[in-house]
């Protein structure tokens, strides 16, 4: 075996060990987790998962998270696509400044911005709704989407646009029927990044919700602070937070391999 393959194997094992431990714990009883060190569950149990799937305050957390993450991905993509096209094809007044300003929105430390966010979304009556979290997450997902998509679009020769316009295509029809299919791998990669960053964000999502749109990550922090930690349920909930993302990446894996190859990303 070559040394570089050895590195990859060691790295993958390093990635999997904590995940294996989480999975292992999720099938154990609390007594076994705290009582003894066991490499695999001796008293195999599905009780931890049963708790989550029968308690609405648990499973609604997943539903809420999935709703706002999906909304956010759709909004981010639909506004970022035309903007990325503009950045990749035209120069216009203030374009460079605008591009850098968009990126600076990823750089604001959240702790103090949470209160203004809360006030802003309360004042327009969106507090504790899915759309509020989706809109707030646009703050960091839209700039990233524009950045990634611009890279993919710059890879498409400009002659294609010109030929289409000469052939009498209007802008909207050209954009939807010719241009978008050409960069669909790029759209897949961008959607993956939007999904990922929205799914893992906790502070904004927790601040903007209380009951109806409470995300799973916030539901889990509640359990941590409860008296006597329920490690088994916590581990099961942790395993279930990985599942939606793993499904998404399994479906887009070929796009990602291909899409990453085309773009400048």
């Amino acid at each position: 075996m070559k040394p570089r393959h050895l590195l990859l194997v060691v790295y993958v094992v390093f990635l999997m060990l904590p995940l294996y431990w989480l999975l292992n714990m999720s099938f154990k009883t609390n007594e076994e987790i705290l009582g003894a060190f066991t490499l695999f569950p001796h008293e195999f149990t599905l009780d931890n998962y049963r708790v989550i799937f029968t308690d609405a305050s648990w499973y609604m957390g997943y539903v809420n998270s999935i709703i706002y993450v999906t909304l956010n991905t759709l909004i981010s993509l639909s506004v970022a696509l035309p903007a990325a096209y503009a950045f990749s094809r035209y120069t216009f007044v203030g374009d460079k400044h605008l591009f850098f300003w968009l990126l600076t929105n990823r750089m604001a430390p959240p702790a103090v911005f949470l209160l203004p966010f809360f006030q802003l979304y309360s004042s327009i009556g969106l507090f504790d709704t899915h759309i509020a979290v989706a809109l707030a997450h646009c703050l960091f997902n839209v700039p990233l989407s524009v950045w990634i998509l611009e890279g993919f679009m710059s890879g498409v020769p400009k002659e294609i646009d010109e030929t289409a316009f000469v052939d009498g295509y209007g802008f909207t029809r050209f954009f939807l029927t010719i241009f978008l299919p050409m960069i669909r791998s790029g759209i897949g990669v961008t959607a993956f990044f939007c999904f990922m960053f929205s799914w893992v964000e906790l502070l904004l999502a927790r601040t903007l919700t209380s009951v109806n749109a409470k995300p799973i990550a916030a539901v889990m922090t509640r359990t941590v602070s409860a008296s006597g930690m329920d490690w088994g349920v916590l581990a099961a909930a942790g395993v279930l937070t990985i599942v939606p993302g793993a499904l998404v990446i399994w479906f887009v894996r070929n796009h990602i391999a291909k899409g990453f190859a085309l773009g400048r990303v």
Partner: protein
Amino acid sequence: MKTENNRAWFLVLPVFALVAFSAIVPLMTVVNYSVQDIFGPDDRVFVGAEWYREILQDDRLQQGLLRQFVFSFAILLIEIPLGIAVALAMPRRGRLASLTLVVLALPLLIPWNVVGTIWQIFGRADIGLGGVLVTALGVDYNYAANPFDAWATVLVMDVWHWTSLVALLCFSGLKAIPDAYYQAAKIDGASAWAVFRFVQLPKLKNVLLIAVLLRFMDSFMIYSEPFVLTGGGPGNSTTFLSQTLARLAVGQFDLGPAAAFSLIYFLIILLFCWLFYTTMMQLGRGSQQ
């Protein structure tokens, strides 16, 4: 090349409106807080630059800042080379390539506080696999009591969590290099190192820029993971800048100083991103000539 067309603003307008809505109002509110002393909703006094002066002389900020710089640069020094190395070792095509991609992406998809929880358990010397393994090597390891162990655990956790992002981005950059480049290098009899230095590295410039900027920004604002893992302890040894800020803003509810603090924080990140951006662009230009 690009045509000049100011009507392109119409295409950018939705993005501008959407981001401005969530960015400008909160930013202005924070600027507003930072120059006032706030006693209640209707009771506030304009204090000018007082909070800024106070914050810049504050020990907690200076210590937090120092810790933050050490942490972020350690992260970049470990994750960028490791990410490149992993990307170079990844299979390029076939089922194994897809499988590697999926496995590498897994840590990225876990909510950040859950990452902290995973490592909190994994690192425990009595019930966690990682802690047990390290103890078995004869090291007296306890991340909750020993500052060095706490630092090491936070670093290893971040490497576990984020190296995949660097690796995925570099993998995409490597896939974009046409085979002809490698054939030319082969004909010239180039060594593996020469191929890396003169063919692969220049082509990775753009993705590395994205990777360095994203890793710098996110590691400089790291909050949830160390908060769950160590709670900033033992003592203050893993209290990073954003946690100092959160204590000030949420714990003591000193909005004025906290707002001044976060604006300074924001400007530091902005300055460094700009520095990275311009240096890497310069380097790229130098190597192309």
